[in-house]
């Protein structure tokens, strides 16, 4: 299908030019001395505490980047990003678990880090897994590494992230990935600059380490339109792009040709309560981010499933349905958000299963329609009119049912009232999803790591703790 376009070619060119103008004329707050020296050596200039990046350097860096990185799971599964496929992954970093049976929430525990990974491993439409929950009894410095370590044994799919904040985390994350056979060039790490246009020292230091290690930089600018970026979505997209490209420039100077994924996490200010995650503005800005990233030839990763809702209700369904569909139709390469609820602070097992089914429908939309001879079916229409005058017995019918003309759902309710009320005991889609999540948690087995691998992971965590926690406590 033709990709959905919110922006014309002229719009994209104007946004590109505005981005370069911001990077060279407004500048980016940057105070980390070692990386500043690297940037100055490459032709950037400093005005006060802001660095200016000339347009040629930015475009040269864009040209050098590996825009088709591949990520790998320990089962050998390789997702080639930017090759035309759409890969879904889950939300990372949720604090709470929504208990759909009780209608209550609880704080996520260590066990939830494991259980979420197992459920995501079992869901065929979750193509990449990231560590889901943030258990609060873990020391802050170790949170990302802890989440990664305890997810690794429970999926064989590509396990990506974690979102990091400090340079020290890079080495340990890379070492852990290598234990399961994922090389640095097949591992994405992400960090978020501060909006507006601020690269704080730990972030700059971390980017240098990420580039040196040769990992795929999937950095996540997350401005909030109206608060940390302009109220107008186009202005926010330009600022977001400048933040993203600024980190890319440093990475490409340090290690030309290292992998990059162009990401955007633009949210909008809810001017009465805080943050919009469910509004259609998210889907629209994600779609525009896809267009902008594709303008440079990058593979693009944006928000997909996103809602402000607190339960598995109508608001939740229509918000996440729209917000995943719009960027998918714009040609997104990766969409996030499986399992997400309440603007990203909560997740649930039932939601993961629901999203797995929603992905099926989104993929069906992406595959679009064909008007070739086979699909126009003129000959079949003629045959049927001369014969049985219905299509049920046609090989053509079965062939295309099997080929995916319909996205056949497993959870959506499509029975009569009588069947629904009787045999199905009035269960709705969300009820089926919760049942299925519980079944997965009971039954799904993930091939365990070798004892030696577990030992190595423990050793890496012990070293990380010694280096990062003890040092800070002095």
């Amino acid at each position, binding site marked *: 299908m033709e990709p959905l376009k919110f922006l014309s070619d002229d719009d994209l060119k104007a946004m590109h030019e505005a981005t370069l103008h911001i990077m060279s004329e407004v500048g980016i707050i940057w105070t980390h001395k070692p990386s500043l020296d690297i940037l100055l050596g490459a032709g950037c200039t400093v005005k006060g505490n802001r660095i200016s990046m000339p347009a040629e350097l930015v475009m040269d860096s864009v040209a050098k980047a590996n825009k088709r990185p591949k990520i790998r799971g320990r089962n050998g599964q390789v997702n080639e990003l930017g090759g035309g496929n759409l890969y879904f992954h889950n939300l990372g*970093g*949720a*604090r*709470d678990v929504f208990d759909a049976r009780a209608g209550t929430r609880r*704080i996520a525990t260590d066990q939830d880090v494991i259980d979420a990974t197992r459920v995501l491993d079992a869901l065929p439409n979750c193509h990449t897994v990231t560590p889901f929950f*943030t258990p*609060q009894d*873990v*020391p*802050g*410095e170790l*949170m*990302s590494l802890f989440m990664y370590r305890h997810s690794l044994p429970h999926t064989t799919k590509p396990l990506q992230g974690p979102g990091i*904040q400090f340079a020290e985390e890079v080495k340990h994350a890379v070492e852990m990935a290598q234990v399961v056979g994922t090389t640095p060039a097949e591992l994405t790490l992400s960090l978020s600059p*501060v909006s507006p246009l*601020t690269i*704080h020292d730990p972030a700059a230091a971390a980017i240098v380490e990420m580039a040196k290690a040769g990992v795929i930089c999937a950095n996540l600018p997350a401005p909030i339109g*109206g*608060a*940390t970026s302009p109220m107008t979505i186009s202005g926010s997209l330009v600022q977001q792009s400048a933040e993203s490209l600024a980190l890319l420039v440093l990475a490409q100077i340090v290690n030309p040709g290292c992998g990059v994924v162009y990401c955007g996490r633009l949210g909008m*200010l809810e*001017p*009465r*309560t*805080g*943050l919009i995650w469910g509004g259609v503005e998210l889907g629209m800005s994600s779609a525009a981010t896809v267009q902008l990233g594709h303008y440079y030839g990058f593979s693009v990763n944006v928000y997909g499933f996103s809602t402000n809702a607190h339960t598995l209700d109508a608001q939740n369904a229509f918000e996440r349905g729209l917000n995943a569909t719009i960027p998918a139709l714009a040609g997104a390469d990766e969409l996030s958000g499986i399992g997400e609820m309440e603007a990203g*602070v909560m997740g649930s097992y039932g939601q993961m299963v629901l999203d797995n089914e929603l992905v099926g429908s989104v993929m069906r939309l992406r595959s679009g329609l064909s008007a070739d001879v086979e699909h126009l079916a003129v000959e079949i229409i003629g045959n049927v009119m001369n014969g049985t005058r219905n299509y049920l017995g046609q090989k053509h019918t079965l062939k295309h049912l099997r080929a995916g003309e319909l996205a056949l759902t497993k959870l959506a309710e499509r029975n009569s009232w009588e069947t629904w009320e009787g045999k199905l005991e009035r269960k709705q889609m969300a009820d089926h999803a919760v049942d299925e999540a519980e079944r997965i948690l009971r039954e799904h087995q993930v091939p365990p790591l070798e004892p030696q691998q577990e030992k190595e992971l423990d050793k890496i965590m012990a070293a990380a703790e010694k280096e990062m926690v003890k040092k800070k406590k002095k």
Partner: protein
Amino acid sequence: MSEELYKQMAQCIIDGDSDISVELAKKSIELKMHPLETITKGFVVGVNYIGDQFGLGEAFLPELVMAGEAMKAAIAVLEPELLKLGETRQMLGRVVLATVEGDIHEIGKTLVGTMLSASGFEVVDLGVDQPADKIIGKALEINADIIGMSALLTTTMVRQREVIEELDKEGLRPRIKVMVGGAPITRDWVTKIKADGYSEDAIGAVKIAKELMGKAD
């Protein structure tokens, strides 16, 4: 005469117009109006109104920010006059604000600071990425009544507990009260880390701070 001026003062805060709030503050000085009354009968009325409207979902966050800024601008004009009279604005309490170590987000915290100042608290805002010892050191230095801590990330909120544990260890509570806030903060978390108060927004934070000082509205 002054009634009309008070109304205009309240209105310019509601409109978030710093130029007019400064102009009216200067005018009140020319008219020899008492600066303290100018603040309480004029400008504060506007802040309270916009706060109430925000609480009702009728005002937007940007209006709150602009009202706070307009208030600050007016106070900056009037404070030297108070000093000349040998008076000070009676402060409701002293607050040290900071975003915890490892976290560099501060919009919400800054807004809380603005609203606390506008409501009559003395606020020292340490900024972002502040370790426990710095926060506590500053609180001791200025003899603070309240420490307010912010965290935006689920990965950094755990640091709020470290500050509270440190305060407990030093035996500084309940002398120093602790307020926490930030997007991932919930009532359960507040209970768990034994903080004294929390709010989901800046207007609520003012209310909590007043309660902690025993000066509830």
